[in-house]
């Protein structure tokens, strides 16, 4: 798969734990490189080793690691690109959630051979405040990653939303999202045109 994923983990480790932590993880995981190139493809086995090594070195389960990574990609000041691209999804957090269906198509517009996990969003019941999000990709545990992304996006919109991962149906885990207050916080401003 594209180095983009590995690179995201690399930046996450460096920005939060420092260069030293990264080089230890690169050693432990026998990654064979000091740094990943986002636009080059790497063997999937390298990604597996990278995740195992990061989880071990940072002392957090892979679930927590994924969740933190998702949060980092949206909320860290060094990651302006993913946050902005996601905000194009809608004017409100609810609109954004419903735009997740389109995410793979959107990503492919920019990079045609990018493999993006399939995301499915359903509104639950009659209320428009409950959603179920399913994600399927080559990496196990993507629900946790998505949960981190969505929590950070809810903050970004200034929306209070509760997220839960459920082992609910035959399709495996899914994410339940309940919007409680759309005016909960300030949120961050989003202008269509990038400044500077």
């Amino acid at each position, binding site marked *: 798969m594209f180095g983009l994923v590995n690179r995201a983990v690399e930046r996450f480790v460096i920005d939060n734990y420092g260069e030293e932590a990264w080089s230890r993880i690169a050693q432990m995981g026998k990654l064979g490189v000091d740094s990943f190139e986002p636009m080059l493809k790497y063997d999937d086995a390298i990604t597996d080793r990278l995740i195992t090594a990061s989880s071990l070195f940072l002392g957090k389960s892979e679930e927590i690691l994924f969740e933190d990574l998702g949060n980092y990609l949206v909320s860290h000041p060094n990651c302006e690109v993913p946050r*902005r691209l996601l905000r*194009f999804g809608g004017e409100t957090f609810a609109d954004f959630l419903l735009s997740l269906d389109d995410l793979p198509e959107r990503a492919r*517009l*920019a990079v045609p051979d990018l493999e993006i996990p399939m995301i499915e969003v359903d509104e639950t019941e009659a209320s428009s405040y409950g959603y179920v999000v399913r994600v399927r990709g080559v990496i196990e545990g993507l629900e946790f990653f998505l949960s981190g992304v969505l929590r950070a996006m809810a903050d970004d919109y200034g929306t209070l939303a509760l997220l839960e991962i459920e082992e609910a149906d035959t399709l495996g885990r899914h994410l339940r999202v309940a919007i409680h207050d759309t005016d909960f916080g300030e949120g961050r401003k989003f202008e*269509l*045109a990038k400044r500077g």
Partner: protein
Amino acid sequence: MGIVETCAVDIEAAELGRLMPMYVHLSNDGIILAAGPTLSKIAGRQLVGKGFLDVLEVRRPRSITTFQVLRNHLDNTLHLSLRGDPPTLFRAVAARTGGQGGGILLNLSFGIHVYDAVSQHRLNLSDFAATDLAIEMLYLKEAKSAAMDESRRLNERLETARRVAQETAVTDLLTGLPNRRGFELKISERMGRNEPFAVMVLDLDFFKAVNDTLGHEAGDVVLQTAAKRFLNCMRRGDVVARMGGDEFLGLCDGTADPDHLKAVGERLIESLEAPIEYHGRECKVSASIGIVVAEDDGNTTLAELLKMADEALYVSKRNGRGQVSIAGIPTTDQSDGLEVENTKVVSFRSARNTS
């Protein structure tokens, strides 16, 4: 003419504004009756009651300068600009509406100017209809440029890596001098210049003894020191290279004087004979040197030059080491027919004799 089907739409201005946030509704004589919220936001002032052509200029078709003419061109795509600094550019389609007197409804879009308009007027998602592909276009622009930036950075990193690899391929890592390949590249640059130059082959004497008694690390220090001393004895623009093992090469530029070259060689030997310290122990080496002068006639290959220099070096070794020999010039002391053959025009002596 066929039957004209009418579609009776009775719609509130606010509702129409949701469908088309940049619409303008005009009376039959060109007065703005209503305008969409985004267009009003961009204009930054009240539009209702103003003359259409006072607010917007028709850029194309050029012939439209009065409202009377505009009414006859409603089938054209209109290119409009909102008067202001800088003007905002639009594309528009127009249609006649019913009602008393009949009016004109125009729907405006930014067309390709969408990015400029969005940044100039700080527009947001809510300023566009959900059906407007302008948002997708802005998204695409941003996603593509992020991908392009990454590709550009990748290219820069690959280019740097390529240069380093190229540099390493022609460099001897121990001494930092050019290696054999590096030397060949430099000398081939010199060879077409029609100026004399000399090639010097240098072999360290007693180097094996240092290696055997004090170890490879000592040997490495000796080689590094020898490289520095060799460089110090040469002029700027000359080239010193390591061929591997204890063999070095020198390229002396613009020199054809055998006395001068011999002096350079002897100075070099003297410099190399000064003891080299390694962890409190003294390493002593010397050097044998063979020199060939190339009067650049364009016929001599590098291999031939090196062969002659090697033969001169062989003479120095045979004569008891620590000596300088120049190809084509018989060594002064008991040479016993060991002098190098005076071949072609390459050796210094023949070069001089023919000039």
